């Protein structure tokens, strides 16, 4: 019996050792980013490197937050991401309702097109988008970014919302229709209120995609007052002869919305994500 116990302890030590090693691989770069954001720029590459230096301060953060140009990047990112999220949920909800509650010619074909949109490379789209956005007068504007971001967010949102609505019994809609209501009232009065958990998960993912988007934000805007956070981080890299502490502070500030959303909705989010990846 003692050997079984020893074996178990050994296995446990092995697993913990492995987990700690992996955690260092995953977590150390993030920890180093955090630590650098509190250093003075002169100490970023000091030898030997220290996690916390004598000059520990929030200067890099106050520098970023006190700079109107940097704050503008955040404002732009919030505006675009929130608009994309609201519009995506609205459009996807209507489409999801059609897919879940109706049978109609071309249903399978339309569904297949929506699924395949996810695979089209952004780099293929960015060239005609540039031509299109310029022609429509949307170059370097919010609507140009919001519209093009929806090509990434809409397919996933439609697939997930359709799957969610499919889990809700059809009797719910019928009860409204018996009372003389239409499908429209059934959707908004009954289905939407009970779909809130599913809509939140889809909304969080949509927000993250838009917040993180890089290629379109880079190509379809020109002036600094239209740039989003990811591009702002890149601009910071070019202009200030490498203010590493500020770059790290900006990176952390730019990651906070996504980190908070993820921590709040972790369970629901992972569930939805894996369901989408496995079943979509």
């Amino acid at each position, binding site marked *: 019996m003692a050997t079984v116990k020893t074996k178990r302890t050994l296995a446990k030590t092995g697993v913990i050792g492995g987990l700690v090693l992996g955690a260092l691989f995953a977590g150390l770069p993030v920890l180093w980013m955090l630590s650098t954001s509190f250093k003075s720029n002169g100490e970023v590459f000091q030898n030997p490197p220290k996690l916390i230096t004598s000059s520990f301060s929030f200067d890099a953060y106050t520098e970023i937050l006190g700079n109107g140009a940097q704050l503008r990047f955040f404002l732009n990112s919030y505006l675009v991401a929130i608009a994309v999220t609201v519009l995506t949920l*609205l459009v996807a909800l209507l489409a999801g*309702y059609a897919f879940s509650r109706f049978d109609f010619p071309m249903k399978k074909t339309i569904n297949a097109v929506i699924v395949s949109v996810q695979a089209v490379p952004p780099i293929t789209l960015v060239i005609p988008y540039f031509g299109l956005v310029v022609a429509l007068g949307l170059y370097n504007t919010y609507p140009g970014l919001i*519209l093009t971001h929806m090509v990434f967010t809409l397919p996933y949102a439609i697939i997930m919302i359709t799957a969610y609505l499919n889990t809700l019994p059809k009797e719910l809609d019928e009860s409204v229709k018996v009372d003389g209501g239409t499908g429209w009232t059934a959707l908004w009065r009954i289905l939407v209120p009970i779909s809130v958990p599913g809509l939140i998960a889809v909304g969080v993912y949509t927000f993250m995609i838009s917040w993180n988007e890089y290629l379109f934000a880079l190509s379809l805007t020109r002036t600094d007052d239209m740039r989003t956070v990811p591009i702002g981080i890149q601009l910071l890299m070019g202009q200030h002869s490498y203010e590493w502490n500020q770059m790290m502070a900006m990176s952390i500030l730019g990651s906070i919305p996504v980190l908070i959303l993820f921590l709040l909705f972790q369970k629901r989010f992972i569930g939805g994500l894996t369901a989408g990846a496995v079943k979509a």
Partner: protein
Amino acid sequence: MTLLAPKTAEPVEQAAPPKRSTLARRLVPYGYLSPTLILIVVLMVVPIVMVISYSFRDNVIVQDNSVFAGLANYTKVLTDPDFLAALKNTAVFITVSMAAHLVLGLTFAMMLNTQLLSGVTKAVFRIVYILPWLFTIAVVAVIWRMLLDPSGVVNYVLHTLGLINEGVNWLGDPGKALWAVTFINIWSGYPFFMISLLAGLQGIPNDLYEAAAVDGTNWFQRFLHVTLPQLRPVIISMAVLDLIWTSQQFALIWMTTGGGPLNTTEMLSTYTYKQAFSEYEFATASAAAVLVLLITMVLAFFYVRSQRER
């Protein structure tokens, strides 16, 4: 599969009193779908037609006297050594990234699925393991530019361990840059595999392991004959998704090396981008973009087929 698909809507429709004409009722679902259909036409159908037509023309976008150019743009791209280098680099980048994502994702998922530790401990580790995936690529790029700097902390550690003699410029050395960006991509991408594989592992019924244990199998045999076959569908679909995403990676390369030094990290995406937005050769860029689309379509075809097999 197809035969079993339930016809969901009809009972509801029949139960509703026939107030409106049949035609109007038939149009209802299209009404709900109309915003989606309009967006798909504007964001997908029109742009793809546009990029294909650009690829057969010359002087597009920047000038308005575009002329038909036949296959000239394609010949130019396919004989451009930079494009061929990009093709090769992309293949290396994808293959190594995918293999590492799978190995790391599976190893971490199995460690996180252990029965030996408490739920709380595992939850803490799980959050740490997901961290790299929560940062946008722009952030990942600046973190690693700092860490991999010649006087950065990675070089310090390697130097202290006696593995290198002087600071290595990982992202600036033509012989090392491709490996460096691939490593960064591995770091930022494995959590997605891990999350899905963890969900897959949790779905494997315990009876299978118990039955295998009764048969006197060891840990490795159970991994080979129970775990892997059970995870096969998840692994296949994740691998194809990863293939598609990694082939589209742009921001990471653009913000770390910009395709350099000497084209050693040039990818299909950065090549196409440079043709369009640095050289303003939109016609050439369109030909490259159409080739990228064709490659992706082949990959997507395998994805759909792998999904059907399940």
